[in-house]
């Protein structure tokens, strides 16, 4: 809401500078967004009269003017303007002057002829092009032809064109539709400054003639009040210059006196109005009713609008003449030849207007005011004010009487409040006298009852109807800055964090300790992201009804796509390596009792990429990570059984060469985004807690990744439920440990886990540690075999072990390995 300080001063005496006024208004709840000082930069531009014009001797397009600026000697100015003639009064920028945009004007020579200034157009004086009538947009502004206010030679142009003002832009909160007007802001200013609000007294002269039109409302809920006044002998012309200035400063383009009056009153009172050309009406009755579904209507902006049956229309003789509260129609538009009009001032239901405006995609100054809600007594005052201006400007005669559909006048709202409750809520101690005085500033009458106060609320404050509304009024006028700052008095509360949150914090801390950087990606992804990543999910995808775009249209079923996108971004930006993790929610769709429901679960994804990273660099960290979180007995189980495939590989190749059969591997792929030979399920006591592996070459290609990426995906719901970080102390062993190495040859296809499992199983409780220290396959040993070497530690809690005891266990392990895995001792 833009408000001219000059206009505001019609209603309230602001006795401080604009900046401090703005600060006070902000602090009382009308937030000032901007302050614009009109004409601030213009200097030394005055009124001049052209005494003489001669052609420039050396330039066809220039003329030499002699200008009287009210001083003894005329000024010589060379100009390229072609709309000036002798005796024209024009704005003259003198030597040393500054124009609105900051341009400095100095004397100089134009094609050899001295020029002591410049003649100005309106735009050069800071008036935006959109507000200047088309015929005045080009060329020098001729005061004598266009200005209907007095001026004298040499007078500061800012005074003449009324360019000295400050325009404040207020942010109006949703609860204060009454402040969408100069009067509303003026009332706030009066309350803020604690000075009187000077209301207008309106007396109309009116002619002898009675109004000959009437109005009727068919849908009272949508239109609680509709009023019309009839104006005859209308002369269309420009509005007074001062009025035009106020409209411009408020962001509205002056059009003609009648249209300007409707706009001016709307700005002043916050009541949108409309004028109909009576000669274009077909009957003497205006009817407000709902539109016919599918009807079309041409609005003032020349657009044809398709209506629906929920839209409220203004009609005449069964013809639409306006969309109620939104925009009038072309068929009854005021034009230069209009002589007879009806002025409409009405009240429409906020929801109805909002719906219509939204459906039509048409938001106007009127609709934006109606949709916030306006009290219905305001239309009466506004209508009077408009008629007053018509009489004042002499642009028509107002007929007696009014057609008004209101049956019953509004009654003032009353609220019962307790001062002690108000004081207690705010934390202040306002006494009765000050309380009453403070409310009086808001024109709220306070009447003392037995214990409490009965407040009578002014009609324009439709936002006040409960005690807490009054708490706010008191607090803001008392001053939020004056309310003391006071610690909470009461029970000491111990701050807690849920176990899940603590666990999450620990996971994050641990991850960073292991070298991972945390990433944060959107909770929504695109179906194409899911497809691209090759994740397979049995989750039902949750889709947004109104996403911003494809790439943010579904809730992520996994953190993998976001992680791969992040790695791809970093890789593309030449960030050579990274270790990243994300901990967050993943989503799936579920139906519950026929209704849509959502499941949110915690997932953890970590990945490493770079030249030196592979499955094992990640695995080591994952093991340490899970172990620290209290996950024991973790097993990495290969995802794919390769034993047949590897042995058949040569046969298949041969077959292809000999019989021209294309190579066909049938891999039973469980996790398609992972390399089938370099991926594993993470299993704890028969529960799959996650999957890890190197990213499948096909997925890598899709993201244009060159170095190996190893990734782990963990189901944090399960991990949280089984993790156990209980510490149980074990006394330190006093007896020495016996270390034995065990090196065996086995088939290459044997997983070391199989060997280790057997060692542990047959190691008895004397075996305390199994450490793999070498795996070798190569020249030194038989083809198809590998050498695996372990360091085994034995110990007892109650004695020093003898060689005999240890040998017996070691032998039994070996025997088992030989018999079950066909191992040979090296």
């Amino acid at each position, binding site marked *: 809401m833009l408000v001219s300080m000059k206009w505001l001063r019609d209603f309230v005496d602001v006795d401080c500078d604009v900046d401090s006024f703005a600060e006070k208004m*902000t*602090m009382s*709840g009308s*937030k000032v967004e901007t302050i614009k000082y009109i004409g601030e930069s213009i200097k030394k531009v005055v009124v001049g009269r052209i005494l003489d014009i001669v052609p420039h001797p050396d330039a066809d397009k220039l003329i030499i003017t002699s200008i009287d600026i009210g001083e003894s000697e005329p000024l010589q100015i060379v100009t390229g303007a072609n709309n000036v003639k002798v005796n024209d009064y024009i704005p003259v920028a003198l030597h040393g002057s500054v124009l609105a945009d900051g341009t400095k004007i100095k004397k100089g020579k134009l094609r050899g002829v001295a020029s002591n200034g410049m003649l100005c157009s309106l735009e050069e004086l800071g008036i935006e092009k959109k507000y200047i009538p088309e015929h005045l947009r080009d060329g020098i502004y001729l005061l004598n032809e266009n200005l209907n206010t007095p001026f004298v030679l040499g007078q500061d142009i800012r005074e003449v064109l009324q360019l000295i003002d400050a325009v404040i832009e207020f942010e109006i*909160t*949703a609860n*204060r539709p009454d402040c969408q007007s100069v009067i509303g802001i003026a009332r706030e200013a009066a309350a803020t400054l604690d000075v009187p609000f000077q209301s207008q007294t309106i007396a109309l002269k009116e002619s002898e003639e009675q109004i000959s039109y009437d109005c009727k409302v068919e849908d009272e809920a949508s239109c609680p009040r509709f009023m019309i006044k009839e104006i005859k002998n209308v002369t269309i012309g420009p509005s007074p210059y001062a009025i035009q200035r106020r409209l411009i400063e408020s962001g509205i383009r002056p059009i003609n006196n009648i249209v300007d009056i409707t706009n001016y009153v709307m700005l002043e009172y916050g009541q949108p109005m409309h004028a109909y050309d009576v000669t274009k009406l077909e009957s003497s009755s205006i009817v407000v009713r709902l539109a016919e579904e599918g009807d079309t209507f041409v609005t003032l902006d020349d657009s044809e609008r398709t209506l629906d049956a929920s839209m409220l229309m203004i009609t005449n003789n069964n013809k639409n003449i306006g969309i109620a509260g939104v925009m009038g129609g072309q068929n009854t538009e005021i034009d230069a030849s209009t002589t007879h009009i009806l002025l409409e001032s009405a009240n429409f239901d*906020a929801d109805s207007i*909002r719906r219509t405006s939204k459906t039509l995609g048409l938001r106007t100054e009127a609709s934006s005011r109606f949709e916030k809600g306006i009290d219905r007594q305001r239309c009466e005052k506004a209508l009077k004010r408009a008629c007053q201006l018509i009489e004042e400007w002499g642009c028509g005669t107002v007929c007696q009487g009014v057609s008004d559909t209101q049956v019953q006048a509004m009654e003032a709202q009353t609220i019962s409040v307790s001062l002690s409750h108000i004081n207690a*809520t*705010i*934390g202040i101690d306002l006494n009765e006298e000050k309380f009453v005085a403070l409310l009086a500033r808001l024109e709220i009458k306070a009447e003392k009852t037995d214990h409490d106060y009965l407040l009578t609320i002014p009609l324009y404050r439709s936002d006040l109807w*409960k005690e*807490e*509304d009054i*708490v*706010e009024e008191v*607090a803001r006028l008392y001053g*939020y*800055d004056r*309310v*003391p*700052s*006071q*610690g*909470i008095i*009461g029970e000491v*509360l*111990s*701050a*807690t*964090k*849920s176990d899940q949150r603590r666990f999450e914090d620990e996971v*994050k801390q641990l*991850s*960073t*300790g*292991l*070298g991972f*950087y*945390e*990433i*944060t*990606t959107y*909770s*929504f992804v695109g179906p194409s992201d899911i497809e691209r990543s090759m994740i397979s999910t049995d989750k039902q995808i*949750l*889709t947004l009804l*109104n996403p*911003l775009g494809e790439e943010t249209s579904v809730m992520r079923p996994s953190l993998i796509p976001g992680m791969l996108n992040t790695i791809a*971004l970093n890789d593309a*930006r030449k*960030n050579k390596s*990274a270790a*990243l*993790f994300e901990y967050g929610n993943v989503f799936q769709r579920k139906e519950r009792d026929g209704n*849509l*429901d*959502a499941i*949110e679960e915690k997932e953890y994804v970590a990945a490493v990429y770079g030249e030196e990273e592979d499955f094992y660099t990640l695995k080591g960290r994952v093991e340490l990570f899970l172990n620290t979180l209290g996950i024991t007995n973790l097993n990495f189980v290969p995802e794919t059984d390769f034993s047949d495939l590897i042995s058949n590989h040569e046969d298949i190749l041969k077959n292809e060469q000999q019989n021209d059969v294309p190579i066909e591997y049938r891999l039973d792929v469980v996790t398609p985004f992972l390399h089938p030979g370099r991926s594993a399920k993470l299993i704890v006591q028969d529960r799959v807690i996650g999957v890890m592996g190197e990213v499948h070459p096909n997925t890598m290609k899709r993201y244009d990744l060159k170095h190996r990426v190893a990734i782990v995906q963990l189901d944090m719901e399960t991990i949280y439920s089984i993790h156990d970080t209980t510490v149980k102390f074990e006394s330190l062993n006093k007896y020495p440990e016996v270390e034995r190495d065990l090196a065996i040859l086995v088939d290459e296809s044997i997983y070391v886990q199989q060997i280790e499992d057997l060692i542990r199983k047959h190691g008895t409780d004397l075996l305390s540690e199994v450490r793999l220290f070498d795996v070798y396959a190569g020249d030194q040993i038989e083809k198809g075999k590998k050498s695996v070497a372990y360091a085994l530690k034995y110990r007892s809690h109650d004695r020093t072990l003898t060689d005999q005891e240890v040998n017996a266990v070691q032998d039994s392990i070996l025997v088992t390995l030989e018999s079950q895995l066909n191992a040979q001792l090296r």
Partner: protein
Amino acid sequence: MKERLNQLLEQARKDLDLVTSVKEVDEVRVRYLGKKQELASILKEMGKLSAQERPIMGQLANQVREQIETEVVKQKTRLEEAELNHRLIQEKIDVTLPGKKAELGKRHPLTKVMHEAEDIFMNMGFSIVEGPEIETVKNNFDMLNAPKNHPSRDMSDTFYFDEELLLRTHTSPVQIRTMLESEPPIRIISLGRCFRNDTPDATHSPMFHQIEGLVVGEGITFANLKYTLQKFAESFFGLDTRTKFRPHNFPFTEPSAEVDISCFKCHGAGCSICKGEGYIEILGAGMVHPNVLRNCGIDPTVYSGFAFGMGLERITMLKYGVDDIRLFYENDIRFLDQF
């Protein structure tokens, strides 16, 4: 025998003078003092001596042994020291070479600031609570006293799954859940992801994070709200931070306020960070609307409360001077490494 002993001592001293390593010292020691060596063989002859001579020679022999031992220890210590020094010189390295890479990751800047804020509020007795990202219209709007026609409910503002389910637009539904589940006194911070239908640009993101606080109890006042937020601002932005409460309007609080903090860069003088204002808006706050309390089964005639909310991205951007919100979700490692 006496002569032999003295000779032995002389000879041992000479040998010890010639040694150049700890190993040689040990050899000398063994040669003279070892069980089968010279001193021992002299002592074996003690039996042949008269009873008179025996103690004298015995004493002499002991003296010789002690002297040799003393010499041995002396030489050994000297040589050990020399050898150590030699080794230290040999082992000299270029300490200006880079260290072996140790890797430590970092929390995301938003997590870091979130933890910082959590700590501040936990020290003030606030518990940390969380809720789901997918919420009901009821928890997100209805229970919070948002009018049925409030523009924030529009599809142009809020992401919907259907008429009932949406992506929460603030963390306030967590307050509702908490009030429904527990009795006053309540003092909680709810934080997490929120969503609004905003096209991403330097200051907007369809996903962002909020930190919200709620206090409900007997005798809770607006003055308490001022105190709490002032203390937070001091802890988070610095002890000299001032807060400014301006009246505003929110459906779920009454009275409502917007809260500015004095610019931590210019301390109120006006600079580019605060756009010349001296103050920066960071918070929305107010006294919990009695309707909200009532909706959650809390009697507003007995209890009152305050609530506040702020954008985690905003305070993080202010704190570190980050100029584009999109950087938080892009996760460029060069960005993440700075916090």
